[in-house]
């Protein structure tokens, strides 16, 4: 589903919408089994040259396994992996134009930070002066200039992670695989490094495949995100699409927080539908593939639900009454949990645009929730 209003973040870079574009990395019905257990299950994925692609999924869903197959440490049980049109089966890791940053860092304990970063460059036979310059550049990138002469066991966890990052980036491979590259960094350093990675990827024209647990990180950096679950792809889309137009309840629930209303499609016209749920009739302008009479879910993000102590003026708005059940004040926003009269609990996020509201709602107050017909999506899966 490509919404016109939900473009990729990088304007004009949308090879996935171009039927003539050739995929650079192609997982073609790849399955990887460990014994009877399928860590990756009949998975197909295409990634384009110069794309910043993120894999997002719960722990154990097969993200690292996918990267390890591309790097050459595991062979697929079945299916093919193509890189620039070439089938990678049987190609040893050292012949693949791919570098990987390991989730466990895998730093060489007997070498200094400098030597670790230089290792791959030396392997390529780069002249010593060029190596020194590249190492210095990498140390600057990860802000470890003073630590060049230390051994890995003399570094903190976050510093080790940065060395691992620098070592994998140093060779400037065509494809860089990053397995949780920033997980051990504090928030500020993580955000800075995210932007520097994006710049680096842009400047050098590399293709990045990044695994992350952190949705914000995926949203910030990636051109497209693949949501994985139990070794299968649930959805591949740009960050705005993933957020605003999730394809299934799993994706809607996995990325950000969401309110789901179950109901029956009572009317289905071109471009609109009416869904009757308990205590609430929803009019929607995004009917998706809802069919008359079917039971579906309507997903809407908390920040798109307005909260007030009065019924909405617009009679056509989707609205329901309830009681404030719980309040979480987070500084920039306040999250209200409203228990509707139907018994369902709905989340509403209110931006604290003023230091004090003139209409403070508090625990136990009666309140109305309301949302626009085009604010949510209908999910049939």
């Amino acid at each position, binding site marked *: 589903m490509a919404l016109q209003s939900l473009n990729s973040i990088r304007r004009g870079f949308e090879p996935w919408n171009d039927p003539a574009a050739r995929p650079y990395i192609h997982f073609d019905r790849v399955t990887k089994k460990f014994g009877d257990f399928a860590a990756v299950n009949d998975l197909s994925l295409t990634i384009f040259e110069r794309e910043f692609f993120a894999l997002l999924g719960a722990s154990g869903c097969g993200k690292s396994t996918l990267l390890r197959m591309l790097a050459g440490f595991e062979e697929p049980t079945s299916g093919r992996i193509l890189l620039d049109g070439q089938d990678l089966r049987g190609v040893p890791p050292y012949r693949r134009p791919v570098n990987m940053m390991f989730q466990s860092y895998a730093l060489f304990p007997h070498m200094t930070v400098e030597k670790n970063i230089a*290792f791959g460059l030396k392997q390529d036979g780069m002249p010593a002066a060029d190596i020194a310059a590249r190492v210095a550049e990498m140390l600057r990138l990860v802000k470890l200039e003073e630590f060049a002469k230390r051994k890995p066991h003399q570094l903190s966890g976050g510093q080790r992670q940065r060395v691992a990052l620098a070592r994998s980036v140093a060779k400037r491979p065509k494809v860089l695989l990053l397995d949780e590259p920033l997980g051990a960094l504090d928030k500020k350093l993580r955000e800075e490094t995210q932007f520097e990675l994006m710049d680096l990827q842009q400047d050098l024209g590399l293709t990045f495949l990044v695994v992350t647990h952190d949705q914000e990180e995926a949203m910030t950096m990636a051109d497209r995100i693949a949501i994985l679950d139990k070794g299968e792809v649930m959805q591949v889309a740009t960050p705005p699409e993933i957020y605003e137009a999730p394809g299934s309840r799993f994706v809607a629930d996995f990325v950000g927080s969401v309110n789901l209303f179950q109901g029956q499609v009572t009317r289905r016209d071109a471009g609109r539908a009416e869904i009757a749920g308990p205590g609430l009739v929803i009019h929607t302008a995004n009917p998706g593939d809802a069919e008359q009479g079917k039971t579906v879910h309507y997903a809407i993000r908390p920040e798109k639900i307005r909260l007030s102590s009065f019924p909405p003026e617009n009679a056509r708005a989707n609205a329901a009454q309830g009681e404030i059940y719980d309040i979480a004040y987070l500084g920039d926003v306040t999250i209200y949990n409203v228990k509707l009269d139907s018994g369902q609990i709905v989340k509403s996020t209110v931006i604290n645009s003023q230091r004090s509201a003139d209409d403070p709602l508090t625990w136990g107050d009666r309140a109305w929730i309301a949302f626009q017909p085009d604010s949510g999506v209908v999910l049939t899966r």
Partner: protein
Amino acid sequence: MTIPVAPGTDIPTKNESRPVWSRGILRALSSRLVILVPYLWLLAFFLVPFAIVVKISFSQTTLAIPPYTPVLEGVGSLWQNLREFSFDNYLWLTQDALYFNAYVTSVVIAAVSTVLALLVGYPLAYGVARAPSALRPLLLMLVILPFWTSFLIRVYAWIGILKPEGLLNQFLMAIGLIDQPLLIMNTYTAIFIGIVYSYLPFMVLPLYAALEKMDYSLIEAAQDLGCTRSSAFWKITFPLSRPGIIAGCMLVFIPAVGEFVIPDLLGGSQTLMIGKTLWNEFFANRDWPVSSAVAVILLLLLVVPIMIFQQAQARQQEQGR
């Protein structure tokens, strides 16, 4: 709740019967005791006997029981005592080329055996360390299994294998590989075989310990950065196993230099190793002072490798963090 207490202040709690300071002393004492016991052991059973050996090495041989002149005994003046010291035994060691040759031969034989044991032991240790983890205890067990039989009996068994009409020659002749029996018994080859066989576990165990704790993803990372399997081995695995190599080599080299049983049983009468020389001086010639001097020099020779071993151990511990 814990109440923060400044260091040095003791706040007795009510379920304590003894005052805090006496518990402190007891604890300090018992923690010292743990270190003290092995040190006392070493003092009583190593340092004191060694001091006696050193003392004997400075005396003269006589026909008596014990067969040496008293040194540093009685309550004479220090000068008198020192005058009784004799360096004759040490001088004697330099005058007869026999001793020098025996030391050199022992060191060379021990060194060659150590290298051979490393060449055999490294692949073995590597194989065990890379085996499925369920299989490893069994494989290690097999490495240690020979220790269940007496060392002497195992060396004797090699005579049965290596002698001209022994199992090895019978087998090789039966399959037609040779028609004359190989003369291995009573050669240096037999000594090498004996030492490598006997000391192999001492090589394999420290190597295994070093290789087993190595993270396999390091090899993957090296391959990812452009190494072939073999260059990844030489650049990563081998340097990381160096503490294990040093420890294993020293554990083989140090006892092999003074080895007596193997050269005596497998090497025949003409082998000139320092352990045999020592035995001859002591039992055949009954020259306690000279054999003590031989033993003291042997120990001095081994101090260097022992120190190298100690350092390797310390480094391995540091790296293990």
